């Protein structure tokens, strides 16, 4: 029978061989996808998601099992990404660089989209709307973007997102509401 994530995490804490590799294989894609959605850079997403696994290895013993393993681990991933962004912003400020995310009106958001949405099955109009929508998502604040992604792509409930982002449920609701209201304003309602 396949071990649950929680059992595997305890095995990692006990340094049982193979347990860490199994958890990595289970979560590598989700960790990388979440990191990429926040950072929008392949190398940084790879490094931050790997850093999250290293932190998992170090602190597996502190997982109390009060929440789901996935919630606990997503929190580590998000924290790694937000820490990384803070450091990057600090260096940019120190070196006098301008962060393009500071100015949402900078350039054409469609051109700045790193990976245009392509779905040959859908109509051209739908493609255009989705490209606009994800470009608009990219312009949200990192916390709003993380909240939207965790809810819409990873299927987490507001309560779980609050744990992952270390925020109250009320704050997550505000983030989600503002994110959706901003997206609606930028791309309009679906025809």
């Amino acid at each position, binding site marked *: 029978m396949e071990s649950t994530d929680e059992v595997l995490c305890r095995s990692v804490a006990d340094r049982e061989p193979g347990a860490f590799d199994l958890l990595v294989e289970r979560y590598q894609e989700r960790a990388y996808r979440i990191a990429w959605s926040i950072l929008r850079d392949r190398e940084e997403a790879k490094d931050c998601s790997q850093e999250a696994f290293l932190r998992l290895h170090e602190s597996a013993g502190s997982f109390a099992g009060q929440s789901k393993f996935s919630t606990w681990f997503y929190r580590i991933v998000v924290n790694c990404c937000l820490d990384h962004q803070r450091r990057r912003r600090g260096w940019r400020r120190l070196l006098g660089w301008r962060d393009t995310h500071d100015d949402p009106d900078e350039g054409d958001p469609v051109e700045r989209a790193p*990976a245009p949405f392509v779905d040959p099955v859908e109509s051209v109009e739908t493609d255009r709307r989705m490209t606009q929508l994800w470009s608009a*998502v990219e312009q949200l604040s990192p916390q709003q973007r993380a909240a939207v992604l965790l*809810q819409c792509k990873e299927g987490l409930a507001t309560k779980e997102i609050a744990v992952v982002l270390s925020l109250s449920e009320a704050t997550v609701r505000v983030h989600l509401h503002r994110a959706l209201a901003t997206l609606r304003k930028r791309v309009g309602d679906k025809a």
Partner: protein
Amino acid sequence: MNSVHVEELLAAHARGELEGAERARVEGHLDGCAACRETLAAFRGLIEELGAAGPPAPPIHWGAYRAELREKLERRTAPRSTAWTAVWRPAPALVAVGLLAGLVYVGLPGGGRGSPTGDRIPFENLILASRLDMIAKLDVVQQLDVVEDFDVIDHLDRLSTGEG
């Protein structure tokens, strides 16, 4: 109609997360508020669209990813504090300080570039000056067998006066 809008609860309501009194309050308000109903429909549409597809993360080679992670883990868990590493730990800082001092020196007026002032003559110039006689007698020096003719080199100055 309840005059207090419930917009901040609409995203949660759209996902069916609200319960009890909160849910009843939102539903009661929606019954009489067309604006909030419209917002709810728009939010539902957006949540559906965002969940359906998205820009794919750039592809990655998972085997290489795990190998790199394993390497990082080994580096991090390897024992670090040997006596040798303790001795060398300040080395990067010392190198950085040395480089900084060099840059500051080069950047100063007369420091590192420009003509030497006062008694300060660069060491290279002293070496060059001591070999000027060899350059003047280059045709002779080039024909010498170095091992055999140290003597001749030592007495190059006498060649010009016809001695030796």
